[in-house]
Structure formats: C-alpha cells, structure tokens
C-alpha cells in the first residue's frame, strides 16, 4: 500500500476464498494496524511458479 497510498490508513475488506467469511486488514504503508481474524494468511500465486512455467506459449 506504500506505493499506492503513501502515509494513508487503508482498510481492505475481503472474503475468505474457502468459507466466504469476512477478512479485513487495516494498515498504513507496511505497518499492520489490525487484522481480523488474527490468524489470517495470504496466498500469492507467483507468475513464475512451477504451475505457470512450460505454458502453452512454448509447446
């Protein structure tokens, strides 16, 4: 968020992809102000991960 909203407090309200219950994150730059629930985790599919190499472009 530092790059998009420098110095501003940002609230991200989302849904868990598994159960659709709410997940929210309040932060400023890279400082985490509040995470609900505290056990929340993030998963980032990498564009360079093994699942994406050897794509159809290079058959």
């Amino acid at each position, binding site marked *: 968020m530092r790059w998009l909203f420098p110095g501003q407090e940002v609230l991200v309200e*989302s849904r868990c992809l*598994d159960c659709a*219950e709410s997940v929210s994150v309040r932060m400023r730059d890279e400082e*985490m102000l509040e995470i609900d629930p505290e056990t929340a985790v993030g998963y980032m599919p990498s564009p*360079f991960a093994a699942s994406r190499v050897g794509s159809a472009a*290079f058959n």
Partner: protein
Amino acid sequence: MNLFRSEEHLTRWLHHWHAAGDYVLPVEEWATVFSAPTFRRRLEPDYLARAPEYLEEYRRALQAAGKSLPAPDRILSTVLFTDIVDSTRHAAQIGDSEWRALIRRHDDLIRGQLQHFGGREIDRTGDGFLSAFQSPARAIRCALAIGVEVHSLGLRVRAGVHSGEFEVLGDHLGGIAVHIGARISALAGPDEVLVSQTVRDAVVGSGIAFEDRGSHELKGVPGEWQLYGVAP
C-alpha cells in the same frame, strides 16, 4: 494475493486447486514483502512486458521473506527477432496517424506469417517482434516470407534467428539466448536474415543456403560469434 481466515482454510482451498508454488505467509509478512521497491514497478504501464527483467529483484524480495522461486524451466527453442528498418525516418515522413495504421498492417502481416509457419508471438520489441519456433528452419522460412511480404507495405525488415536453451518465465522467454538473438538481429542489414552458427548447423539438409558474414562480438555476450546470412 488471496486472503484466508487461517492456514487451515487455505489448505482446504488448495486441496481443490492444485497450484504449485507455496507462497503462503501471514498477512503482516506480505505487507513487508510488498514494501520492497520491486513491487512499485507494478504501477508502471509496461510492467507486464518487462516482468522478466525484474525477476531477480522479485526473487530477492521473496527470499527476504524466507520464500524462494523454483528454478526456471529451460527449453530448447528458436527465437526470431524482426525489426523495421529506418522506422523513425519512415514515421517522420508519413506522420503519426498514418504510421500507426501502417504498423497495424505490419503487425497483422507478421502474425499471419507466424501462424502459417507455426511460430508464436512472445513479445513486441519497439517496431519489431520476438517470436519462438520449435524448428529453426521454420523460423528462417518465416523470416524470409516476412521480409518479402512487408515490401508490399513499403517497409523493409531485418531479422535474426538463434537456437538455444531458454528460460521459461511465465509467458516469456528469458536467458542469455534471448539476448544473443536480439544482438544478431541488430547486426542484420535491410532485407537480411542473419543466423547464428547453431542455427546453420541445425538446418543442414533443409536446402537452406547461407553466406558467411564473419565473426562478430555480440555486446555483453562472451566470445566470438560466427554469423551467416540466409541466401535468398
């Protein structure tokens, strides 16, 4: 980034979606990862086109969070670079609007030839194309066809072909072999298809004839490179 209420929820979700790459972190650690300067590049309009250049930065940002990227897959392939000769002068002569229309026709023509010869468009390089082929002979024949066809648009192209091992990075090709292909293309003259010795050796028996263009240094690439022009 996808959010989950806990690692248990994520594990359940991954059970149904077998994606590789275990980039799972607590949310606060992702915030630290995303503060790395490399992620600022995502705001740049050409980020996707240049993503392979940023791979090393990206790798370092993930390493700082205790994650690592898988070693890139490597494939044997052939790249063809084409570039319009004197494009700046041409554009200045006919004006921006007409030039844009001409480039659209050029692009259509090249894509048609790629389809005909079984090539795949990988990237745009200014007024040129980077494409990949399974067969070096097909790449050469495609380059020759493009060279002839663009004359109908009043254009001339230079082309370079190189075969080697490339890193597969998402939908891009990377590695030194791409740079070699680009350097070879830059040395080609108008209407010329210039190839590396690797390509020449690989197509023996294809009926394609070559003319020796001598030994060259390719900027940033170690060693001397023997290059050959394809005889028309």
